[in-house]
C-alpha cells in the first residue's frame, strides 16, 4: 500500500466489464448490419429489428458467463496481446494478478486459459484463446505483462506443445530435452507408462 499508488476499490460487475472491454474491440461488421436493419423502419418489421442486433456480436470478443463463475472472454490469437495489455493497464479494469494459466486440449482445438484478478478492485475475469492448428500452435507471450507467465507458459509448452512468440526462454521446464510428444494432449499415447481403464 505504501509503495504503490492507492486505488479506490471499484469492483466492476460482469456486465460493466463486458460493456467496457467489448468497446475496445468493436466489430466492423456490426455497424454495417445495424445500418441495413435501420433502413426499412416500419412498424410491422419491429420484431425483426429486435432480433437482428442480437445475431451480430457488436464486439470482436465473445463473452459468456454460462457454466462458469467468472465472465469468460474468447479472443482471437491476433488480438490476444493487445487485449491483455489493455486489461492490465486500464485503470478501471487493472487486472494485475494472473493467478492461473492453463493449457487445454479441447479435442479439435488447443487453447490457453488465463485467470485474472485485480488486487485493487477485486474483480476477476477469464480470457480464453484457441487455435485449430495442432501442428504448430502459436500465441503471443504475455510474460512481458505478468512475469509469472514465463514459467507457466513453459509448462504449457512442455505438455501441450503450444509455442509462445517473443518468450525469452522457451524450452522444456519439466520434460527432458529429447521427450517426444505432448503428454497432456488427448491424443498422446504411451503404452508402457499409461494405464488406461
Amino acid at each position, binding site marked *: *500500500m*505504501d*509503495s*504503490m499508488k492507492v486505488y479506490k476499490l471499484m469492483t466492476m460487475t460482469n456486465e460493466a466489464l463486458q460493456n467496457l472491454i467489448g468497446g475496445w474491440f468493436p466489430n466492423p461488421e456490426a455497424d454495417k448490419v445495424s445500418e441495413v436493419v435501420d433502413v426499412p423502419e416500419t412498424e410491422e418489421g419491429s420484431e425483426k429489428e429486435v432480433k437482428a442486433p442480437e445475431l451480430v456480436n457488436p464486439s470482436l470478443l465473445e463473452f459468456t458467463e*454460462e*457454466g*462458469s*463463475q*467468472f465472465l*469468460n472472454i474468447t479472443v482471437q490469437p491476433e488480438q490476444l496481446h493487445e487485449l491483455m495489455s489493455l486489461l492490465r493497464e486500464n485503470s478501471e479494469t487493472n487486472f*494485475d*494478478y*494472473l*493467478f*492461473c494459466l*492453463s493449457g*487445454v*486440449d479441447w479435442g479439435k482445438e488447443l487453447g490457453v*486459459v488465463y*485467470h485474472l484478478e485485480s*488486487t485493487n478492485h*477485486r474483480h476477476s475475469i477469464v480470457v480464453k484463446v484457441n487455435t485449430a492448428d495442432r501442428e504448430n500452435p502459436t500465441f503471443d507471450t504475455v510474460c512481458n505483462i*505478468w*512475469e*509469472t507467465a*514465463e*514459467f*507457466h507458459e513453459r*509448462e504449457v509448452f512442455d505438455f501441450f506443445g503450444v509455442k509462445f512468440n517473443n518468450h525469452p526462454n522457451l524450452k*522444456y*521446464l*519439466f*520434460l*527432458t530435452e529429447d521427450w517426444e510428444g505432448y*503428454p*497432456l494432449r488427448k491424443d498422446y499415447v504411451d503404452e508402457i507408462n*499409461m*494405464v*488406461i*481403464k
Partner: protein
Amino acid sequence: METTTVNNNFKSEEYFINMGPQHPATHGVLRLLLTIDGEIIKKVEPDLGYIHRSIEKMCERDSYQQIVHLTDRMDYLSSHINNEAVCLTVENALQLEIPDRVKVIRTIIGELTRIASHCLWWGVMGMDVGALTTYFYGFRDREMINDIFEETCGARLTMNYNIPGGLMYDIHPNFVQRTKDFVKHFKTKIPEYDKLLTGNVIFQKRMKGVGILTKEDAISFGASGPVGRGSGYSCDVRKHHPYSALDKVTFNEALKTEGDSLARYEVRIMEMWESLSIIEQLIDNIPEGDYKVATNAVIKLPKGEYYQRVEAARGELGVYVISTGTKNPYRLKFRSPGLSNLSLLNHISVGGKIGDLVATMATLDIVVPDIDR
C-alpha cells in the same frame, strides 16, 4: 563467458555450478543452475521435473473421489488443505449443503496443518542458516499435531480425511482435549522460537535486507502466501475469498512491508499466532450434526468450469476443473503456489552471495512435489 580483468593481475570469470538435485538446501530434488562470478550470483535457473508424476493427467482418468488422494502427494505438508480444495470444488459444483460441523472441523484441522507446516519450515529455516537446534524444536512440536491427526484420521502426513460431501469419519473423542492441550503448549513455545532464533544477532544479519521483493514484483510474479504478504501484498485467500468456517472467525492477515527475508520469516511466525487464535475460536463450538452428507457412489459434475481457491500453507492453491458431465474431469489443473514462488527466486537472489541464496530459498519455503505435480 564474460571475462573481466581486475587490477591487471587477477582475472574474474563467470562459471556454472550445479546446486542439486541432491543438495540438502534445495529441500527435495530440485536442481538449480547457477551462473556465478566468484561468490556473486549472476543468474539462477531452476531445472525441474525430477519427480514429476503428471498428477493432472492421472486425474483425467480417475473419479472425483480418487482425485482427492492424489492431491496429498503434491504439497505433502498441507495435505489436508489440498484435499479440502478438491472437495470444495466438487461440493460447489454439485451445490451440496455441507453441515456446519464439517466446515468447522475442516477449518480446525486446516489451521493445525498450517502450524505443523510452519513448524517444519521454522526448523529447516534455522538449519539452513546454521542453527541445528531449531530443527529438533520444530519437529518436537510438530509431532504433537501429527499425533492428533493420527488419532482422528489414521494418518500422520497424507491424511485423506476429506471426502466429497464431508469427512471420512467423525473426530476422535480425544480430539478436542488434545487440540486444546496443544494450543496451550504451543503458546509457550512460539516465544521460545523468537528467543532462540528471531532475535539472534547472526540470524538477523543473515536475513535483514536480503532477497528484497517489492510489492509490484510480488503481484507480477504471482507470489502468494507468506512470500507475497512479506512484501505488503494482501493476498490471503482466507480473507478475500473465505471458505469453510473461515467467514465465522476473526483473525488478522499477517502483513509486513519490508519485503526482505526477515519479513517473510516474521509473517510465518505471526501466522502461527493467528492460526492458534482461529483454532481457539472454533474448538469449543464444534456444532453437533452429521459428519458427511450422502453423495452418489459415482459423482458426475454438471457440464461447465469450476475454480476453487484456498490458502494452503505455502500460498494460493487453485483447482480448475473442466467437466463435460462425465464421471471424470475433462481437464483438471492445479495452480500450485510453489511454481510461482520459485519463479521469482532468480529475481531476488541475483547480485547476492551463494550463502544468501540458501537462506533466501528457505524463506520461500519450497516443497518440490508441489512444483513437480
